[in-house]
């Protein structure tokens, strides 16, 4: 019997703070996460996996209403893998790599978002948001150090103590069916959505541009044999002068997104009398389908000026918003979560200075700008804002039918890829010369490897804590290198260590060092590795530093820099 995640409801239970016996004694929790959406849940799981106890509060008692965010990117899947629920997402989701763009009824452009083999995860899966939240929630429920409090609405926020010190804390006033109580935490993660009550309570706003266009989402249940590709039409015969997007979800549900124009009546357009003929125009007069979920939306590209305000950190839609074309909303929020979690864990553990949290803000503000820039460009193409912009858009589409160059200008949404945090203060600038994409600040790419003779994936062995990766080629490991690895493994910030060997060399077994074999040579190629190349990887699987030769002292300096610890200037 499968679970219906759309109808699940969770019980409110009075918490410790509300009990007369224990309520008087005020606990200060390390982290309070507000909002049990994908971002809040991912943050809570990531923190809990790193040993930080979390209280997660949500003002509701159910999962996402409607399918909402449906496209989850490879990077999000890599993160879900690290959080222990990637397989469930991918098993249920619809994997896809290919998108097609049509002008009228003619195919003008095909793109493949993952044209090379040798990656565990596809470029994207489509999966209804309630499944994503459901699988994350079930993972969170397995963890004893996450306490989830439903029907708990934050109605007050107060910060106290000296900012940047251990006595800085946040007191939330939480409203429940049993009345209000005070909830104190060192840090609060506001993952409470685009209308963020915490942002409003703190008198902050998220600024940007709202686009004058309306779109209709019709989730339709039907048996159909469209391929599992993203299909986007400009000016199709079945919906003239506007755009349409067709996308497959699990359970025989298809997302159809119709551009309606600014003058459309959002209430009227949601009625089955209006929706069904639009769907029928696409599918044909005899198509059999049921409407699963209908929504009319407008969208904005906006962000908060700063994602950190004292000990309150904003993540996901509360901090930034984009148009849906590009799947950059939920995916960027999940990346916020993983950027923030390890930093909070390190600060709370006393291993990093509080200034590390400033880099959560700066890194993710940079990423948000990139997402907003891409989203705005797509939107300007799909919804031209001026007559001349429309002339150029239509000219591109006309040219695209016959001239390949114009196809690369056709913008139906540039799909989410992780930002390369190349200017991050946490990076150590390359001293040695490297080629390829794995620059400091990039998120690590996957590669097929072998672990103990069995097929495995590189990314499964990276991250969660700082990881050192030594490519030893076919040279094996000499005594000096072994001593250096041992020094790193037992230092103040102990490194998880991975050695990647090629050829038939058998590096000696070293305690707590994972030996992987680069059987296809792809790991070495993707990381531009030579024998001796050493990468320092952040807990969130971003490249932090790299060298052609392992030098423990250089690694120690890079680690201090990555933790904002004194003496790295």
């Amino acid at each position: 019997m499968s679970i219906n995640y759309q109808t699940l409801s969770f019980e409110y239970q009075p918490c410790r703070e509300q009990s007369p016996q224990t309520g008087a004694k005020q606990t200060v929790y390390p982290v309070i996460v507000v909002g049990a959406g994908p971002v809040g849940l991912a943050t809570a799981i990531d923190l809990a996996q790193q040993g930080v106890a979390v209280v997660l509060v949500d003002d509701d008692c159910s999962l996402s209403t409607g399918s909402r965010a449906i496209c989850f990117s490879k990077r999000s899947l890599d993160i879900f893998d690290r959080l222990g629920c990637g397989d469930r997402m991918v098993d249920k989701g619809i994997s896809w790599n290919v998108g097609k763009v049509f002008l009228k009824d003619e195919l003008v452009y095909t793109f493949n978002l993952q044209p090379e083999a040798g990656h565990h995860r596809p470029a994207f899966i489509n999966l209804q948001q309630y499944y994503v939240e459901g699988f994350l929630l079930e993972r969170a429920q397995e963890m004893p150090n996450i306490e989830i409090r439903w029907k708990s609405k934050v109605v007050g926020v107060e910060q106290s103590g000296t900012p940047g010190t251990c006595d800085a804390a946040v007191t939330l006033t939480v409203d429940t069916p049993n009345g209000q109580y005070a909830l104190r935490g060192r840090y609060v993660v506001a993952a409470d959505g685009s209308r963020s009550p915490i942002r409003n309570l703190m008198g902050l706003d998220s600024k940007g541009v709202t686009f004058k266009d309306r779109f209709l989402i019709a989730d339709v249940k039907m048996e159909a044999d469209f391929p599992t590709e993203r299909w986007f039409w400009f000016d199709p015969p079945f919906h003239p002068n506007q755009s349409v997007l067709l996308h497959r979800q699990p359970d025989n549900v298809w997302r159809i997104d119709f551009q309606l124009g600014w003058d459309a009546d959002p209430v009227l357009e949601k009625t089955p009398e209006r929706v069904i003929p639009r769907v029928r125009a696409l599918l044909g007069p005899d198509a059999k389908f049921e409407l699963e979920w209908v929504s009319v939306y407008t969208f904005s590209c906006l962000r908060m000026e700063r994602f950190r305000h004292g000990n309150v950190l904003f993540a996901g839609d509360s901090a930034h918003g984009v148009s849906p074309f590009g799947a950059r909303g939920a995916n960027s929020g999940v990346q916020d979560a993983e950027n923030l979690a390890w930093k909070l864990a390190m600060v709370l553990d006393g291993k990093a200075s509080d200034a590390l949290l400033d880099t959560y803000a700066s890194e993710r503000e940079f990423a948000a700008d990139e997402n907003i820039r891409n989203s705005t460009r797509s939107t300007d193409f799909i919804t031209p804002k001026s007559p001349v912009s429309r002339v150029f858009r239509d000219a591109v589409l006309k040219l695209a039918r016959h001239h390949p160059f114009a196809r690369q200008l056709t913008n139906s949404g540039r799909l989410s890829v992780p930002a390369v945090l190349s200017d991050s203060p946490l990076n150590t600038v390359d001293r040695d010369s490297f080629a390829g994409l794995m620059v400091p600040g990039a998120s690590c790419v996957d590669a097929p490897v072998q672990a103990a003779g069995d097929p495995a994936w590189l990314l499964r062995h990276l991250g969660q804590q700082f990881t050192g990766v030594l490519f030893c080629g076919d040279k094996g490991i000499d005594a000096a290198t072994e001593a250096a690895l041992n020094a790193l493994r037992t230092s103040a910030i102990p490194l998880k260590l991975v050695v990647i060997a090629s050829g038939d060399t058998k590096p000696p077994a070293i305690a707590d060092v994972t030996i992987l074999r680069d059987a296809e040579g792809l790991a070495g190629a993707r990381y531009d590795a030579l024998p001796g190349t050493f990468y320092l990887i952040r807990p969130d699987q971003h490249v932090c530093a790299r060298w052609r030769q392992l030098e423990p002292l250089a690694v120690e300096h890079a680690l201090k820099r990555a933790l904002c610890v004194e003496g790295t200037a």
Partner: protein
Amino acid sequence: MALNTQPNLARPDDFYEALIDMHRDLDDARSQSANAQLILLLANHIGDHATLLEAIRYAREGVADASPEGGEVHPLAA
């Protein structure tokens, strides 16, 4: 590659005539579309981003009464 604004057309008068000819019998909307397509074709041929930005800047400066809002940097140049 700097934008070449020195004489470079092989057959200047023939080119100009062909350009005007392209618009013959077109209404305003079609003329605009033809111009836009021409710009896109030529831009792709040039390819180099800095050169294109230079041309865009000269074109914008050449619009007599356009008041650049506070000397704003063009978003593409950002």
